[in-house]
Protein backbone atom coordinates (compact mmCIF):
# COMPACT_ATOMS: atom_id res chain seq x y z
CA UNK A 1 0.00 0.00 0.00
CA UNK A 2 1.48 3.37 -1.01
CA UNK A 3 1.82 6.18 1.51
CA UNK A 4 1.75 9.55 -0.24
CA UNK A 5 3.84 12.35 1.20
CA UNK A 6 1.25 15.07 0.76
CA UNK A 7 -1.85 15.58 2.90
CA UNK A 8 -4.96 14.07 1.28
CA UNK A 9 -7.64 16.69 0.60
CA UNK A 10 -11.02 15.06 -0.06
CA UNK A 11 -13.51 16.34 -2.64
CA UNK A 12 -16.83 18.07 -1.78
CA UNK A 13 -18.80 16.17 0.82
CA UNK A 14 -22.42 16.46 1.95
CA UNK A 15 -21.69 15.12 5.42
CA UNK A 16 -20.88 18.33 7.31
CA UNK A 17 -24.20 19.95 6.34
CA UNK A 18 -26.08 16.71 7.05
CA UNK A 19 -24.47 16.73 10.52
CA UNK A 20 -25.76 20.27 11.06
CA UNK A 21 -29.25 19.23 9.95
CA UNK A 22 -29.27 16.20 12.27
CA UNK A 23 -28.12 18.17 15.33
CA UNK A 24 -30.59 20.96 14.50
CA UNK A 25 -33.44 18.44 14.33
CA UNK A 26 -32.49 16.97 17.72
CA UNK A 27 -32.31 20.36 19.42
CA UNK A 28 -35.34 21.83 17.64
CA UNK A 29 -37.40 18.74 18.54
CA UNK A 30 -36.17 19.10 22.12
CA UNK A 31 -37.22 22.74 22.24
CA UNK A 32 -40.67 21.87 20.88
CA UNK A 33 -41.05 19.06 23.41
CA UNK A 34 -39.96 21.31 26.28
CA UNK A 35 -42.71 23.74 25.25
CA UNK A 36 -45.39 21.05 25.30
CA UNK A 37 -45.51 20.27 21.56
CA UNK A 38 -45.31 16.47 21.65
CA UNK A 39 -44.58 15.82 17.94
CA UNK A 40 -41.20 17.29 18.95
CA UNK A 41 -40.34 13.78 20.18
CA UNK A 42 -40.74 12.41 16.64
CA UNK A 43 -38.42 15.15 15.34
CA UNK A 44 -35.84 14.23 18.00
CA UNK A 45 -36.00 10.57 16.97
CA UNK A 46 -35.67 11.49 13.27
CA UNK A 47 -32.69 13.71 14.16
CA UNK A 48 -30.95 10.83 15.96
CA UNK A 49 -31.71 8.47 13.07
CA UNK A 50 -30.20 10.97 10.61
CA UNK A 51 -27.18 11.38 12.91
CA UNK A 52 -26.67 7.59 13.06
CA UNK A 53 -26.80 7.40 9.26
CA UNK A 54 -24.39 10.33 9.01
CA UNK A 55 -21.81 8.65 11.28
CA UNK A 56 -22.04 5.44 9.25
CA UNK A 57 -21.65 7.33 5.97
CA UNK A 58 -18.92 9.80 7.03
CA UNK A 59 -16.77 7.28 8.87
CA UNK A 60 -17.39 4.91 5.95
CA UNK A 61 -15.83 7.47 3.60
CA UNK A 62 -12.82 7.87 5.93
CA UNK A 63 -12.33 4.09 6.18
CA UNK A 64 -12.57 3.73 2.39
CA UNK A 65 -10.02 6.51 1.85
CA UNK A 66 -7.66 4.88 4.38
CA UNK A 67 -8.00 1.41 2.86
CA UNK A 68 -7.35 2.92 -0.60
CA UNK A 69 -3.97 4.10 0.72
CA UNK A 70 -4.74 7.80 0.35
CA UNK A 71 -3.60 8.76 3.86
CA UNK A 72 -0.07 9.86 4.64
CA UNK A 73 1.83 9.73 7.96
CA UNK A 74 0.67 13.31 8.54
CA UNK A 75 -3.00 12.33 8.31
CA UNK A 76 -2.40 9.47 10.74
CA UNK A 77 -0.69 11.89 13.14
CA UNK A 78 -3.60 14.34 12.84
CA UNK A 79 -6.10 11.60 13.74
CA UNK A 80 -4.10 10.82 16.89
CA UNK A 81 -3.98 14.51 17.85
CA UNK A 82 -7.72 14.80 17.26
CA UNK A 83 -8.28 11.91 19.65
CA UNK A 84 -6.15 13.62 22.33
CA UNK A 85 -8.29 16.76 22.12
CA UNK A 86 -11.53 14.76 22.21
CA UNK A 87 -10.36 12.75 25.25
CA UNK A 88 -9.37 16.00 26.97
CA UNK A 89 -12.96 17.23 26.57
CA UNK A 90 -14.34 13.89 27.86
CA UNK A 91 -12.03 14.09 30.85
CA UNK A 92 -13.21 17.60 31.69
CA UNK A 93 -16.81 16.40 31.29
CA UNK A 94 -16.43 13.74 34.00
CA UNK A 95 -14.15 15.87 36.18
CA UNK A 96 -16.88 18.53 36.31
CA UNK A 97 -19.46 16.03 37.64
CA UNK A 98 -17.07 14.43 40.12
CA UNK A 99 -16.07 17.96 41.06
CA UNK A 100 -19.69 18.89 41.72
CA UNK A 101 -20.03 15.84 43.98
CA UNK A 102 -16.86 16.76 45.86
CA UNK A 103 -17.96 20.40 46.21
CA UNK A 104 -21.40 19.44 47.55
CA UNK A 105 -20.05 16.93 50.06
CA UNK A 106 -17.25 19.11 51.40
CA UNK A 107 -17.71 22.83 50.70
CA UNK A 108 -21.50 23.17 50.62
CA UNK A 109 -22.04 20.70 53.47
CA UNK A 110 -19.61 22.69 55.62
CA UNK A 111 -21.50 25.92 55.04
CA UNK A 112 -24.82 24.24 55.83
CA UNK A 113 -23.53 23.01 59.21
CA UNK A 114 -22.09 26.39 60.12
CA UNK A 115 -18.43 26.21 59.09
CA UNK A 116 -16.57 28.47 56.72
CA UNK A 117 -17.32 31.91 55.35
CA UNK A 118 -20.95 31.13 54.51
CA UNK A 119 -21.65 29.73 57.97
CA UNK A 120 -24.53 32.22 58.16
CA UNK A 121 -26.48 29.79 55.98
CA UNK A 122 -26.74 27.49 58.99
CA UNK A 123 -27.49 30.20 61.52
CA UNK A 124 -30.10 32.03 59.51
CA UNK A 125 -31.69 29.44 57.22
CA UNK A 126 -30.99 25.78 57.96
CA UNK A 127 -30.09 25.50 61.62
CA UNK A 128 -31.51 21.95 61.78
CA UNK A 129 -29.16 20.65 59.10
CA UNK A 130 -26.64 17.94 60.06
CA UNK A 131 -23.92 16.81 57.71
CA UNK A 132 -24.34 13.23 56.60
CA UNK A 133 -24.07 11.55 53.23
CA UNK A 134 -26.28 10.53 51.48
CA UNK A 135 -28.15 13.74 52.01
CA UNK A 136 -30.85 15.43 50.00
CA UNK A 137 -30.15 18.88 51.30
CA UNK A 138 -32.34 20.92 53.61
CA UNK A 139 -35.95 21.30 52.63
CA UNK A 140 -36.36 18.04 50.68
CA UNK A 141 -38.59 15.84 52.77
CA UNK A 142 -39.01 12.66 50.69
CA UNK A 143 -37.32 9.58 52.07
CA UNK A 144 -35.31 7.26 49.84
CA UNK A 145 -32.94 4.34 50.25
CA UNK A 146 -29.40 5.01 49.04
CA UNK A 147 -27.90 2.72 46.42
CA UNK A 148 -25.72 0.05 48.02
CA UNK A 149 -22.28 -0.83 46.67
CA UNK A 150 -22.53 -4.61 47.09
CA UNK A 151 -24.75 -6.64 44.79
CA UNK A 152 -25.20 -5.41 41.24
CA UNK A 153 -22.72 -2.48 41.39
CA UNK A 154 -19.91 -4.75 42.65
CA UNK A 155 -20.87 -7.38 40.08
CA UNK A 156 -20.82 -4.72 37.36
CA UNK A 157 -17.31 -3.80 38.48
CA UNK A 158 -16.28 -7.42 37.88
CA UNK A 159 -18.04 -7.32 34.48
CA UNK A 160 -16.13 -4.24 33.34
CA UNK A 161 -12.81 -5.50 34.73
CA UNK A 162 -13.28 -8.74 32.80
CA UNK A 163 -14.14 -6.76 29.68
CA UNK A 164 -10.85 -4.88 30.14
CA UNK A 165 -9.09 -8.25 30.12
CA UNK A 166 -10.96 -9.47 27.01
CA UNK A 167 -10.20 -6.29 25.01
CA UNK A 168 -6.54 -6.66 26.04
CA UNK A 169 -6.54 -10.26 24.76
CA UNK A 170 -8.02 -8.97 21.48
CA UNK A 171 -5.29 -6.29 21.36
CA UNK A 172 -2.52 -8.86 21.77
CA UNK A 173 -4.30 -11.03 19.18
CA UNK A 174 -4.04 -8.15 16.71
CA UNK A 175 -0.37 -7.52 17.52
CA UNK A 176 0.50 -11.22 17.10
CA UNK A 177 -1.67 -11.68 13.95
CA UNK A 178 -3.95 -14.12 15.79
CA UNK A 179 -7.24 -13.13 14.13
CA UNK A 180 -9.24 -15.74 16.05
CA UNK A 181 -8.20 -14.28 19.40
CA UNK A 182 -8.79 -10.75 18.13
CA UNK A 183 -12.37 -11.47 17.04
CA UNK A 184 -13.29 -13.65 20.03
CA UNK A 185 -11.87 -11.03 22.42
CA UNK A 186 -13.90 -8.26 20.77
CA UNK A 187 -17.11 -10.28 20.82
CA UNK A 188 -16.62 -11.09 24.52
CA UNK A 189 -15.94 -7.41 25.31
CA UNK A 190 -19.08 -6.25 23.51
CA UNK A 191 -21.19 -8.92 25.24
CA UNK A 192 -19.86 -7.90 28.67
CA UNK A 193 -20.53 -4.24 27.88
CA UNK A 194 -24.14 -5.03 26.96
CA UNK A 195 -24.59 -7.06 30.15
CA UNK A 196 -23.31 -4.06 32.12
CA UNK A 197 -25.79 -1.66 30.49
CA UNK A 198 -28.71 -4.07 30.95
CA UNK A 199 -27.87 -4.55 34.64
CA UNK A 200 -27.55 -0.78 35.16
CA UNK A 201 -30.97 -0.29 33.55
CA UNK A 202 -32.45 -2.89 35.91
CA UNK A 203 -30.77 -1.13 38.85
CA UNK A 204 -32.35 2.17 37.77
CA UNK A 205 -35.75 0.43 37.67
CA UNK A 206 -35.15 -0.98 41.16
CA UNK A 207 -34.11 2.49 42.36
CA UNK A 208 -37.22 4.17 40.96
CA UNK A 209 -39.72 1.50 41.96
CA UNK A 210 -38.46 0.20 45.31
CA UNK A 211 -35.86 2.58 46.73
CA UNK A 212 -37.68 5.82 45.84
CA UNK A 213 -34.28 7.00 44.58
CA UNK A 214 -35.14 9.34 41.71
CA UNK A 215 -33.77 12.45 40.02
CA UNK A 216 -35.83 14.36 42.58
CA UNK A 217 -34.01 12.82 45.55
CA UNK A 218 -32.11 16.01 46.23
CA UNK A 219 -28.41 16.33 45.51
CA UNK A 220 -27.71 12.66 46.21
CA UNK A 221 -30.23 11.59 43.57
CA UNK A 222 -29.05 14.23 41.08
CA UNK A 223 -25.38 13.40 41.41
CA UNK A 224 -26.02 9.66 41.43
CA UNK A 225 -27.99 9.72 38.19
CA UNK A 226 -25.90 12.28 36.35
CA UNK A 227 -22.66 10.43 37.07
CA UNK A 228 -23.88 6.88 36.51
CA UNK A 229 -26.20 7.93 33.67
CA UNK A 230 -23.54 9.65 31.59
CA UNK A 231 -21.15 6.81 32.35
CA UNK A 232 -23.74 4.30 31.07
CA UNK A 233 -24.14 6.40 27.93
CA UNK A 234 -20.37 6.26 27.38
CA UNK A 235 -20.38 2.47 27.85
CA UNK A 236 -23.15 2.24 25.23
CA UNK A 237 -21.26 4.43 22.76
CA UNK A 238 -18.08 2.43 23.49
CA UNK A 239 -19.90 -0.82 22.78
CA UNK A 240 -21.22 0.57 19.48
CA UNK A 241 -17.68 1.63 18.51
CA UNK A 242 -16.36 -1.82 19.46
CA UNK A 243 -19.04 -3.40 17.27
CA UNK A 244 -17.96 -1.27 14.29
CA UNK A 245 -14.32 -2.22 14.92
CA UNK A 246 -15.38 -5.89 15.12
CA UNK A 247 -17.02 -5.53 11.69
CA UNK A 248 -13.81 -4.04 10.30
CA UNK A 249 -11.69 -6.80 11.89
CA UNK A 250 -13.92 -9.43 10.30
CA UNK A 251 -13.35 -7.73 6.95
CA UNK A 252 -9.60 -7.93 7.54
CA UNK A 253 -9.03 -4.18 7.76
CA UNK A 254 -6.33 -4.04 10.43
CA UNK A 255 -2.70 -5.14 10.32
CA UNK A 256 -0.15 -5.21 13.14
CA UNK A 257 1.30 -1.98 11.64
CA UNK A 258 -1.90 -0.12 10.75
CA UNK A 259 -4.65 -0.24 13.37
CA UNK A 260 -5.12 3.20 14.91
CA UNK A 261 -8.94 2.86 15.05
CA UNK A 262 -8.68 -0.37 17.04
CA UNK A 263 -6.26 1.09 19.57
CA UNK A 264 -8.30 4.28 19.90
CA UNK A 265 -11.51 2.36 20.62
CA UNK A 266 -9.69 -0.09 22.95
CA UNK A 267 -8.21 2.83 24.89
CA UNK A 268 -11.65 4.44 25.12
CA UNK A 269 -13.01 1.21 26.61
CA UNK A 270 -10.25 1.20 29.24
CA UNK A 271 -11.08 4.85 29.99
CA UNK A 272 -14.75 3.93 30.56
CA UNK A 273 -13.64 1.17 32.98
CA UNK A 274 -11.42 3.57 34.94
CA UNK A 275 -14.29 6.08 35.23
CA UNK A 276 -16.48 3.26 36.57
CA UNK A 277 -13.85 2.44 39.22
CA UNK A 278 -14.02 6.09 40.27
CA UNK A 279 -17.82 5.89 40.38
CA UNK A 280 -17.77 2.67 42.39
CA UNK A 281 -15.50 4.24 45.00
CA UNK A 282 -16.89 7.78 45.21
CA UNK A 283 -20.57 7.32 44.38
CA UNK A 284 -21.43 3.83 45.59
CA UNK A 285 -18.98 3.21 48.45
CA UNK A 286 -17.98 6.43 50.13
Amino acid at each position, binding site marked *: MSHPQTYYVPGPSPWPIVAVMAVFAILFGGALLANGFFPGLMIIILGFALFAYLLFAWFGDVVRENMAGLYS*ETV*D*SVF*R*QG*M*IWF*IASELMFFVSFFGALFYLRTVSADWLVGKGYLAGTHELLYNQFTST*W*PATGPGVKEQY*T*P*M*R*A*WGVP*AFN*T*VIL*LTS*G*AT*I*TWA*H*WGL*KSENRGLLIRGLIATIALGLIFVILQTLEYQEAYQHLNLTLKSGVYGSTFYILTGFHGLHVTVGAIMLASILGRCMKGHF*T*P*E*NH*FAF*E*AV*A*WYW*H*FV*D*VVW*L*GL*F*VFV*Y*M*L
Partner: protein
Amino acid sequence: MGVTFKLPALFLAGLIVFVLAEALYFLSKDHGDRDKTRVARALSLRVSLALVLFLVLIAGAMFGFIKPHGI
Protein backbone atom coordinates in the same frame (compact mmCIF):
# COMPACT_ATOMS: atom_id res chain seq x y z
CA MET B 1 -11.98 4.67 56.44
CA GLY B 2 -8.58 4.42 58.17
CA VAL B 3 -5.66 6.38 56.75
CA THR B 4 -3.52 3.23 56.57
CA PHE B 5 -6.06 1.83 54.16
CA LYS B 6 -7.04 4.99 52.33
CA LEU B 7 -3.49 5.97 51.29
CA PRO B 8 -2.54 2.73 49.49
CA ALA B 9 -5.96 2.61 47.82
CA LEU B 10 -5.67 6.21 46.60
CA PHE B 11 -2.07 5.62 45.48
CA LEU B 12 -3.22 2.59 43.47
CA ALA B 13 -6.06 4.61 41.92
CA GLY B 14 -3.61 7.39 41.00
CA LEU B 15 -1.26 4.84 39.46
CA ILE B 16 -4.09 3.45 37.32
CA VAL B 17 -4.90 6.92 35.98
CA PHE B 18 -1.19 7.56 35.31
CA VAL B 19 -0.77 4.28 33.40
CA LEU B 20 -3.91 5.03 31.35
CA ALA B 21 -2.56 8.50 30.49
CA GLU B 22 0.80 6.96 29.61
CA ALA B 23 -0.98 4.53 27.24
CA LEU B 24 -2.66 7.52 25.55
CA TYR B 25 0.72 9.20 25.16
CA PHE B 26 2.17 6.03 23.57
CA LEU B 27 -0.91 5.85 21.30
CA SER B 28 -0.16 9.35 20.01
CA LYS B 29 3.55 8.59 19.44
CA ASP B 30 3.73 5.01 18.17
CA HIS B 31 2.46 4.70 14.64
CA GLY B 32 3.31 2.48 11.75
CA ASP B 33 5.71 0.43 13.81
CA ARG B 34 4.74 -3.24 14.12
CA ASP B 35 7.22 -3.98 16.88
CA LYS B 36 6.10 -1.28 19.27
CA THR B 37 3.84 -2.84 21.88
CA ARG B 38 3.96 0.00 24.43
CA VAL B 39 0.22 0.75 24.18
CA ALA B 40 -0.78 -2.90 24.61
CA ARG B 41 1.64 -3.34 27.53
CA ALA B 42 0.46 -0.18 29.31
CA LEU B 43 -3.18 -1.17 28.91
CA SER B 44 -2.42 -4.70 30.17
CA LEU B 45 -0.80 -3.16 33.25
CA ARG B 46 -3.85 -0.93 33.69
CA VAL B 47 -6.19 -3.93 33.82
CA SER B 48 -3.94 -5.76 36.31
CA LEU B 49 -3.75 -2.73 38.63
CA ALA B 50 -7.53 -2.26 38.43
CA LEU B 51 -8.03 -5.87 39.49
CA VAL B 52 -5.66 -5.37 42.44
CA LEU B 53 -7.53 -2.21 43.48
CA PHE B 54 -10.86 -4.02 43.36
CA LEU B 55 -9.47 -6.86 45.50
CA VAL B 56 -8.06 -4.31 47.98
CA LEU B 57 -11.52 -2.68 48.23
CA ILE B 58 -13.21 -6.06 48.74
CA ALA B 59 -10.66 -6.95 51.44
CA GLY B 60 -11.20 -3.56 53.04
CA ALA B 61 -14.92 -4.14 53.23
CA MET B 62 -14.53 -7.71 54.52
CA PHE B 63 -12.17 -6.65 57.33
CA GLY B 64 -14.28 -3.67 58.27
CA PHE B 65 -11.98 -0.86 57.10
CA ILE B 66 -14.67 0.43 54.77
CA LYS B 67 -18.24 1.03 55.79
CA PRO B 68 -20.16 1.94 52.66
CA HIS B 69 -22.88 4.50 53.24
CA GLY B 70 -25.57 2.37 51.71
CA ILE B 71 -25.50 -0.47 54.24
